[in-house]
């Protein structure tokens, strides 16, 4: 594995090579935006979100912080701030993971299988548990 100093560059490269649209701010590598499409066969299909990625100083030893810029209705995403409560990102992150994993696996998983028993958006979680169709409708409305 390569040295931590180059991980940011490598991760960014890999992300772009996997055809993600990356928008950088003044070519800084600490914070940038990535376009993320709702996974097919999920109720989020067709949605496009701008996702803010922040790489902390201790990256990749510390997990990147991920936030949705435009609104998303989801039990594990804070409605106001857009911050994501994702187990893998927040708790079980390991330096072996990279940004492509985040966008190819972790985020799609989150949208496909929300976890209403650990909600950040309590209302969305309760609605999902009680009234699935209403929840799905509301997701689409957003």
């Amino acid at each position: 594995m390569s040295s931590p100093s180059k991980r940011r560059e490598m991760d960014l490269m890999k992300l772009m090579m996997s055809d993600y649209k990356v928008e950088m701010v003044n070519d800084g590598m600490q914070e940038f935006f990535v376009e993320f499409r709702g996974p097919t066969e999920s109720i989020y299909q067709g949605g496009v979100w701008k996702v803010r990625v922040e790489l902390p100083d201790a990256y990749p030893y510390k997990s990147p912080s991920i936030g949705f810029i435009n609104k998303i209705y989801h039990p594990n995403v804070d409605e106001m701030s857009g911050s994501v409560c994702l187990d893998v990102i927040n708790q079980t992150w390991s330096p072996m993971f990279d940004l492509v994993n985040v966008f190819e696996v972790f985020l799609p998983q989150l949208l496909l299988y929300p976890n209403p028993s650990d909600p950040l958006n309590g209302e969305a979680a309760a609605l999902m548990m009680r009234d699935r169709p209403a929840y799905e409708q509301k997701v689409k409305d957003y």
Partner: protein
Amino acid sequence: MLTFFAAKNLALAGVKSVTIHDVKNVEMWDLSGNFFLSEDDIGKNRAAACVAKLQELNNAVLISALTEELTMEHLSKFQAVVFTDIGLDKAYEFDYYCHNHQPPISFIKSEVCGLFGSVFCDFGPKFTVLDVDGEDPHTGIIASISNDNPALISCVDDERLEFQDGDLVVFSEVHGMTELNDGKPRKVKNARPFSFSIEEDTSNFGIYVKGGIVTQVKEPKVLCFKALRDAMTDPGEFLLSDFSKFERPPVLHLAFQALDKFKKDHGRCPAAGCEEDAQSFLKIAAAINEASADRKLDTIDEKLFRQFASGSRAVLNPMAAMFGGIVGQEVVKACSGKFHPLNQFFYFDSVESLPTYPLEPQDLKPSNSRYDAQVSVFGSKLQKKMEEANTFVVGSGALGCEFLKNLALMGVSCSSKGKLTITDDDIIEKSNLSRQFLFRDWNIGQAKSTVAATAANAINPSLYIDALQNRACPDTENVFHDTFWEGLDVVINALDNVNARMYMDMRCLYFQKPLLESGTLGAKCNTQMVIPHLTENYGASRDPPEKQAPMCTVHSFPHNIDHCLTWARSEFEGLLEKTPNEVNSFLSNPAQYAAAMRKAGDAQARELLERVSECLNKDRCSTFDDCISWARLKFEDYFSNRVKQLTFTFPEDAATSMGAPFWSAPKRFPRALQFSAADQSHLNFIMSASILRAESFGVAIPEWAKNTSKLADVVQKIIVPTFEPKQGVNIVTDEKASNLSSTSVDDVAVIEDLLAKLQEYAKRLPPGFQMKPIQFEKDDDTNFHMDLISGLANMRARNYSIPEVDKLKAKFIAGRIIPAIATSTAMATGLVCLELYKVMAGEHPVEDYRNTFANLALPLFSMAEPVPPKVMKHKETSWTVWDRWSVQGNLTLAELLQWFADKGLTAYSISCGTSLLYNNMFARHKDRLPKKVVDVAREVGKVDVPEYRRHLDIGVACEDEDENDVDIPLVSVYFR
């Protein structure tokens, strides 16, 4: 001297009383190791000369001197006695007396002779240890319990269990199988990461339903010590410190006996470099070895015994610091029963600290200087080198103080050709005094580095020291510039956080300077040597970052006090720092603020505005009564309304879509609190919240604010509206429709509306009104910050039936502080200074260096060679992290790419700091190819190379011909 180091640590640890016994007078020789003595003290009694200075360290400890011949009667008054300079025969007598005394007196004997040291403990025939490791008891949250024999308990999988087979545990809050809640300790078997069994037949117990917490209970342990005379002939197993010296302890056991015999025969220690004494010492050792029947060594390592004899008279400062730490901790163990005592002999040596070149006898001769003892071991050549060293000590806290004392006593940077720079941007606070022993009451509020430097100068007036108040970070590179770094010989870290350590590591790597790193955590300490080209750097291996609780847990589902404290911290910040800042930035320039909010135009901006608006309208406080009323309503909101809402949305019997109960472990079901003016902790919350609120609004705080009964009167008059949970989700369509419309409405419109209202509110404010943001400061006991934090956290804990904590414990957790203790700090700095001898002499191979991990609580000492740096290769070139590639000439980006291409490497990404200069994926970066690298760095990265520097450093990511990444070193472009 060892006595005084141990005494210093004890005074700092705060035992009840310390008595020092010494019949000898101060000699020049003593000055090299005893920082309590100065040249004026020569000729006085050693103990008497030190008492006053020891007393200054801690007024609560009674310190006295005993200067007459020691008798048994003297001993009977003490709980523990330490002997550091005593013949074996006498020691046998005293130990026999202590061992058989009722109650037994703990006997500790310790000696340091040059680079060799020993400790012996005899705490009596039956000594009870209450807490063997000093760790918090392990806990687990139960997920299921089987009705079986033995019963299998599985726990929730969000944290690994740390129970071990044989541990005792108790159960609480178990539903269903309530028989387990009886508080009876049960033994753990088959401990696994998420489950374990207990020795209990639960077949006929109730069926487990839910809940339950399992907690380890600590079992007292009884130890049987042997008396010194018996232990001497049958020492049992020695505590090992260094696995590369597996055979060493029995050898040192013999060497120390031989030294005792030599002293008895000659009335003195062997002289340094004296062949005659060495011969007679070897003869004595051989004779003792012959006589020691079954423990006889096959051969006697002559070189080692010569080294032992030659340095035996010298008490070296690093050795005394280290053993002072160990002995100090043993005394605390003897008096408190906390932590496991040393059982019974411990031997240690650091012969690798000797220079690699041979030492000539005339080089070891004393010259009536304060360094005579040190010179007798290392020779005058190394002494001179140390005095002329240019040293950089980063940090002047607990570690920094110890280092300065050690360095001053060793004579490091104590000639006009040397210099010691110490830097720390902190000032002295009351809580520092217990372990940062160069500081006194009257220094509170002064800069740490300056006070420490003055104190170090008093210890050794020839120290050349420069005290700075700059934090070591990228912003101070104008102070710690290239020239400063290039002149350094060695860097010693005395830091307390990983970020600063990483920064220093990076700088040392860059300037190729040796870095001596150390740290302590309670009774644990570690040291790491970072030596250019020989070892890996500090950042190459690191611990996993601290575990942070996931947001959702902190938000609504806390299950331990940490979660509550994290929440309390973030609420404190939001209420008292962030919102007031926001208010101020609105008030100081409303137009600009409005523009910024309009531009953002998102939900976050809207929420900020809502907070500002609340602060200036509904929740505005102009009198102290307003503040009390605000605090009371906050109480209702936090600890009642929010809980009611949550339990309304998720009732106790709620089920997930899978049908499982929603409120299952680790989640805990909360209950709302009913405010009561009779509850002291409720009132304390109101008090701290209203006082801080008043402070942030600039409202005068009346005298009676701190009077709880007066406060209770006011609080009871406040009218609290009753709360109805929002019919958020299941009373369906209408509510949802309106809810939906309100969120779907453009945030922009809401923002506009709020901005308009703000303008109105602002008009009603007194002219020039500003709020006062409050920054959390944990160390001031009078500022109410910790009161509010612990109030918030404890009330929340009460909601969730989590055990509450007191203010001090809350402070430790919230500040992530584990109290530093003087003993482990002393030990860490002693170990580092033993390494400093190697760095200063130079030419030591990596095998001579040692990294250490030690835990004085167990006790455990584990020393190992540092790990060499990783070697990377591409074709014929190989390099490590210590190397750098330099490119000559003011190249363009295209030319630079070509430079790599010539090496068979494709550079696909080039960066400078955190800015990307070039990446072949970005089409627009192609325009930069004809530009000079320096110019791109200036335009894109805003990097300006200072006039005096000829090069620019860039990071390059490249691939070889087979598209494998090659991790190349930093590249310096010499453009001038």
